[in-house]
C-alpha cells in the first residue's frame, strides 16, 4: 500500500493493549494533496492508529516515516509540519478563545497574524464570545475554538480524530470546506468520523480497520 | 404572617427602607462613638494594675464581641436563606462578611497592641487568640469561596452552607479561656454571676458597644443596597429607580 511519492507512510504498525492486538500490521501512505479517512466501528483502533501516526503513542512494532525518515529520529521537523486534534480539544477552560489560540500560535510562529485570528473566530461564530473563558462555552463552541487552528497554522499534515463531534450543521460544513481546501493546496489530511460526510470536491481514500477481537 | 414577610422582604421595600433609615443610624453611631470615647478616655479612672493602657479595651472588647456577633448574624441569615430560599437573607450574609472580617482583624490588632505592654509579647499561641485568628480564616474562607464559584446562585448557597457549618467555632472562641488555662483575661463582664469590673469602666464599654452595633447596622444597610442593585439589575424595580433617578 506504499507509494513512491508518499510523504507520510506507516509500515506494519502493530499495537497491543493488554492481551488485545488493536493494530495488526497496519500500513498506509499519504502523499501531497491526499485525504485519507480511517474507517471502522467503535473500538476498532482508529484513535490508536492516529495517535501512533502523530508520534503520541509508540507502536509495539513497525514504524512511521515522514519524508523517508523515521519520525522518532527527527521529531521536531515532523511535528512542526503536523497539526493533531484528538478527542480532547486542547482548550483551557480558564482562558478565552483568543488567549487559547494565541498561545499555540506564538509557540509555532514568530509573529502570528492577529486579524486572521479574529476573522477565524468570526467565521466560526465565536466572534461575540472571544473574550469569555472557554469553560463557559457549549460543547460545540469549545470544539470550534480548537478547530480554528486549521486556518491559522500553516502546516502540511492534519491528523483529525472525529473533528465533527459536537458540531452543528454549519460547523460541519465549515470543517469539510477547510479539509477540501487544504487538500487542493497540496496539504494532507488524515481523519476519522462516524458521520456521513459529503466531500464534494475531492474524494477521500479510506483505510478500513476491522473489529478487534479479544484473544482469550 | 406569610404575607407580612413577603411585603417586608420584598427588595423594593427593603431598598427604600434602607435608604431612608441608614443616614440616621450612621449619625447615631457617630454620636455614640464620640460619647463613648469621651467617657472611656477621659472620664473613666485609670486601672490600678495597668494604668492607662487598659483604655484600649474600649476598642478591643467591642470589636471582639462584634466579630462573633456578625458571624452569628451571617450564619442565621444563611440558614434562613437555605431553608426558606429567601434571597434577602443571603444578601444580608453577603453584606456582613467583609465588615465581620474587619472587626475580627481589628480585635486581633488591638489585642496584639494591648498584649505588648501587659504580657510582654505581640502574639501568643493561646487558645482565645488562636481561635480568633481561626475566625478570621473562616471569614476569609467564606469570602474566597463565594468569589471562587462563578455561578452567583451556586456561590451563594455554597457560602451559606459554609457559614452554617462554621458556627460551631463561636462557642469554642467564647469558652476557650475556661477550657484551656490561658494568658487571656477570663470573662469578666459576660459571666453568670455578674461582672467583676467597676461600673465606671463598664458604662463606657457598653456605650462603645452600642456605637459599634449601630455602625454595623449602618454599614449593613448601605452595603445591602449595593448588593441588591447588583443582583436585581435586570428587574423592573431597579429599572424604574434608574429611570426616576432615585438610586
Amino acid at each position, binding site marked *: 500500500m506504499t507509494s513512491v511519492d508518499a510523504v507520510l507512510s506507516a509500515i506494519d504498525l502493530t499495537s497491543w493493549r493488554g492481551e488485545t492486538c488493536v493494530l495488526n500490521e497496519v500500513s498506509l501512505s499519504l502523499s501531497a494533496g491526499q485525504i485519507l479517512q480511517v474507517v471502522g466501528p467503535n473500538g476498532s483502533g482508529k484513535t490508536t492508529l492516529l495517535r501512533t501516526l502523530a508520534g503520541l503513542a509508540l507502536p509495539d512494532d513497525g514504524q512511521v516515516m515522514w519524508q523517508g525518515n523515521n519520525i522518532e529520529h527527527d521529531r521536531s521537523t515532523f511535528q512542526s509540519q503536523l497539526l493533531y486534534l484528538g478527542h480532547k480539544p486542547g482548550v483551557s477552560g480558564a482562558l478565552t478563545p483568543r488567549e487559547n489560540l494565541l498561545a499555540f500560535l506564538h509557540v509555532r510562529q514568530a509573529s502570528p497574524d492577529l486579524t486572521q485570528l479574529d476573522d477565524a473566530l468570526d467565521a466560526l461564530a465565536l466572534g461575540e464570545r472571544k473574550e469569555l473563558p472557554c469553560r463557559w462555552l457549549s460543547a460545540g463552541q469549545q470544539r470550534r475554538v480548537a478547530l480554528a487552528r486549521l486556518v491559522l497554522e500553516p502546516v502540511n499534515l492534519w491528523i483529525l480524530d472525529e473533528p465533527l463531534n459536537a458540531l452543528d450543521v454549519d460547523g460541519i460544513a465549515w470543517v469539510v470546506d477547510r479539509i477540501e481546501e487544504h487538500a487542493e493546496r497540496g496539504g494532507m489530511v488524515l481523519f476519522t468520523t462516524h458521520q456521513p460526510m459529503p466531500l464534494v470536491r475531492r474524494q477521500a481514500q479510506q483505510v478500513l480497520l476491522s473489529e478487534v477481537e479479544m484473544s482469550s | 404572617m406569610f404575607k407580612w414577610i413577603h411585603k417586608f422582604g420584598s427588595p423594593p421595600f427593603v431598598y427604600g427602607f434602607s435608604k431612608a433609615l441608614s443616614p440616621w443610624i450612621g449619625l447615631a453611631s457617630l454620636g455614640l462613638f464620640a460619647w463613648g470615647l469621651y467617657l472611656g478616655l477621659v472620664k473613666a479612672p485609670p486601672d490600678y494594675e495597668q494604668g492607662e493602657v487598659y483604655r484600649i479595651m474600649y476598642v478591643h472588647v467591642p470589636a471582639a464581641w462584634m466579630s462573633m456577633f456578625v458571624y452569628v448574624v451571617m450564619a442565621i441569615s444563611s440558614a434562613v436563606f437555605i431553608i426558606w430560599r429567601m434571597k434577602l437573607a443571603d444578601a444580608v450574609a453577603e453584606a456582613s462578611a467583609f465588615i465581620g472580617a474587619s472587626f475580627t482583624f481589628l480585635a486581633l490588632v488591638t489585642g496584639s497592641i494591648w498584649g505588648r505592654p501587659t504580657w510582654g509579647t505581640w502574639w501568643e499561641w493561646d487558645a482565645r487568640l488562636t481561635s480568633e485568628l481561626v475566625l478570621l480564616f473562616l471569614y476569609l474562607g467564606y469570602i474566597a469561596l463565594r468569589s471562587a*464559584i462563578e455561578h452567583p446562585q451556586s456561590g451563594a448557597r455554597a457560602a451559606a452552607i*459554609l457559614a452554617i457549618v462554621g458556627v460551631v*467555632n463561636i462557642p469554642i472562641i467564647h469558652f476557650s479561656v475556661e477550657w484551656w488555662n490561658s494568658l487571656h483575661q477570663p470573662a469578666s463582664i459576660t459571666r453568670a454571676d455578674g461582672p467583676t469590673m467597676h461600673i465606671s469602666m463598664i458604662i463606657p464599654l457598653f456605650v462603645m458597644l452600642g456605637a459599634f452595633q449601630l455602625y454595623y447596622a449602618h454599614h449593613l444597610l448601605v452595603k445591602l443596597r449595593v448588593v441588591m442593585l447588583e443582583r436585581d439589575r435586570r428587574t423592573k424595580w431597579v429599572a424604574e429607580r434608574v429611570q426616576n433617578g432615585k438610586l
Partner: protein
Amino acid sequence: MSTEQETPTVGIWQVFSTVFVRDLRIAFSSWSEGLNPLLFFVLVVSLFPLGIGPDPRLLSSIGPGVIWVSALLAMLMSLDGLFAADHRDGTLEQWVLSGQPLSIIALAKVCTHWVRSGLPLVLMSPLLGVFLNLPTTALPVLVVSLLLGTMILSLVGAIGSALTLTVKQGGVLLALLVLPLSVPVLIFGAAAVQAVVEQREALGQLALLGGGVMGALALAPVGIAAALRVGVSSGD
C-alpha cells in the same frame, strides 16, 4: 404506561452498601493507591526530626503534636479529590438524579474515604509514637484519639471537599475551609495524648471527641448532600 409498580422501593441500606462497595473497589483498584495516605503520614512525621534535629527530649515533647498535625495533613491531602473524579466523569450527576437520599450516598462515600485514609493511619500510629519516644502508656490514648478524630475530619472535610467541587485548584481553598473547622479536633486530640504523657486524665478530651463524632455523623451528611447539589448545578 406506568412503571412505578414494577420497581419495588430500594432500601436505604442497599443504597449505602452499593455506593460503599463501588467506591472501595475504585479506591483499591490499584494497591499503591490504597496505601498512599498512610505513606504520606509516615513521611511527614519523619520529616520533623530532619527539620528540627534529633534531640530526643525535644522530640518526645513535641511528639503528640507532630503526630496529630501530620494526621490532619494526611487526611486533608486525601480529601482533595474525594468527589472530583465522580464529578468529572458525570457519576455525581447521576447520584444527584438517582431519586435516592443524597445524604446516604454522601455518607457511604465518606465511609469509604475513612476506611481508605483514616483507618490505616490509626493502625500505624502506635509505631510512630514509639518512633518519637512517646511513653507506651500514651499509645492507647493516641490510637483512640486518632480513631475518633479522623472520623470527624473525614466527615467535616467532606463538606469542604463538596463545597470546592467546581473550584479550579480546589486543594488549597479546601485547606482554608477545613483547617479552621478541624482546629478543635486537633487541639483536643493532641491535648489528650499530651495529658497522658504528663500522667493526667485524658477522659474529658476523649469524651469531647466522641461527642464530636456523634454530632458530625448526624449533621455532616446533610451538609455534604446540600453542597454536592450546589456543586453539580453550578455548571460543568
